[in-house]
């Protein structure tokens, strides 16, 4: 079976700056994969290229959720989302004037259909759909553990909870692959441990594969099945956590001599 996401030979230039340099990467169904590397290595840019925020300069992004491969680079962000790739942002981007529940409800947009006429006449199918959206959103919040905040304004949540809400919102789009950009940033060790469990649960219970950017090595090493390491846009290492931990190139460029995990 083909991997669900396969990136071949991707390059991304900003003017003269090569942020991603012929990168190859794949993710199999049900995997948790981590993408790590020094600051400015191009990790976030990589996410942006996959999700249509940037169009890569060259290379292929292929997805294969249901046994049929499809090339998605150059597609608009909203189309990519509808194809089943959802993401969170390194700098939190919640809908600030909305409540927690509404944020997740917006996430359901991709999987619902009510149009202008439907909204105005509010017929049976519209009402049913509204009900479906609310229930689904609440379910997701429960799974993530945010149900106690359901009617709070998203901006009033503590930082850690906001990161979780981003994940919840992304899950509402029914993705087959979730791209998480530094989900543990700004969390204390206690909260990070909870996040660890949560991500595992998402993969195991929902069957959503995960690609993760993170600088918290404890989280990365305990969660991921495989790890890619990039520096200056190039892949400098690839393998299971144990291999990476002992890879001298990676240690030199990224981890430093001793690891506090």
């Amino acid at each position, binding site marked *: 079976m083909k991997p669900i996401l396969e990136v071949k030979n991707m390059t991304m230039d900003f003017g003269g700056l090569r942020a991603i340099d012929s990168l190859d990467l794949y993710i199999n169904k049900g995997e948790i994969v981590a993408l790590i590397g020094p600051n400015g290595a191009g990790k*976030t840019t990589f996410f*942006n290229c996959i999700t249509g*925020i940037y169009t890569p300069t060259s290379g292929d992004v292929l997805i294969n959720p249901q046994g049929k491969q499809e090339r998605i680079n150059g597609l608009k962000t909203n189309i990519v989302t509808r194809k089943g790739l959802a993401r969170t*942002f390194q*700098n939190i981007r919640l809908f600030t004037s909305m409540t927690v529940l509404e944020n997740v409800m917006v996430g359901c947009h991709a999987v619902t259909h009510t149009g202008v006429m439907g909204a105005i006449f509010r017929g049976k199918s519209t009402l049913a759909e509204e009900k479906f959206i609310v229930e689904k959103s609440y379910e997701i919040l429960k799974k993530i553990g945010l149900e106690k905040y359901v009617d709070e304004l998203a901006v009033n949540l503590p930082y850690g909870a906001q990161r979780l809400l981003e994940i919840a919102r992304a899950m509402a789009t029914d993705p087959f692959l979730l791209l998480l950009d530094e989900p543990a940033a700004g969390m204390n060790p206690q909260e990070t441990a909870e996040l660890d469990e949560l991500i595992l649960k998402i993969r195991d219970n929902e069957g959503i594969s995960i690609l993760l950017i993170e600088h918290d090595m404890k989280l990365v090493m305990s969660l991921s099945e495989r790890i890619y390491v990039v520096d200056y846009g190039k892949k400098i290492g690839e393998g299971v956590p144990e291999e990476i931990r002992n890879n001298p190139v990676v240690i030199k460029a990224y981890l430093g001599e001793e690891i506090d995990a």
Partner: protein
Amino acid sequence: MDFEYFAQLFLGGLTRGSIYALIALGYTMVYGIIELINFAHGEIYMIGAFTGLIIASVFTMLGFPTLAVVVLAGMAAIVYSCAYGFTMEKIAYKPLRNAPRLSALISAIGMSLFLQNYVLLAQTSDFLPFPSLIPDFEFWEPYAHILTSPELVIIITTVVVMILLTFLIKFTQIGKAMRATSQDKMMAALLGINVDRVISVTFIVGSATAAIGGILIASHIGQINFYMGFIAGIKAFVAAVLGGIGSIPGAVLGALVLGWTESFFTGYISSDYEDVFAFLFLVVILIFRPSGILGRAETKKV
């Protein structure tokens, strides 16, 4: 058509553009610093012209020599425009600094109406003749049929003001403070910048350029009334946006481009649709350069 005609239209466009530029400069500075479309900027320009006229008339009647009158009137116009700009910011904009941006815009619209009618009531609704403060230069006579002396002065002043302002922003301490304030007020304060003072200074500088514009333009067209700021303000706003709002050279370039567009369109096609064309041109430029000709592109990273 022949070259002379083209040249005349070119120079006409240049003059008109320079006029827009003198007003647009203040517009763009204020916008740059507090992201406010200062609808009342045109009124500051109008007040500058009125003050200039009043002071000039008083001194003329007192029998001062022409040169002294020009200097005194010019200074009074600048001082008063600055004072109005300063006061306006304190009353109508400062209390709104943390409010939604549109609220400040409405406040600016209200200010514009207020000042217009204030001048109408305090002075007159009539058009007043504005003396030609700039004499016809002897040496320029051979070219006067193409470009009059006041027009020449306007063009030169615009260039000088632009250079001075660019210098101010790029190379002085207050300019540095302005740049910081315009991008992140809290951080600017955390680096020791007095944000309130910087904003006041910006209004004062912007008003001073409006006053200079007010006097020069009024003596070019020879008349003023309380309503003169409105259309000039709108056009200057268009020019500032065309050039990339917030950018000093952008304001001048945008104004010139607008001036030329209107001039050539009138000259070669028809002045009936002059503004239609100017606006269409604006749309086309913004479609290809969504942040204006010299505006900075959106560089916020995802």
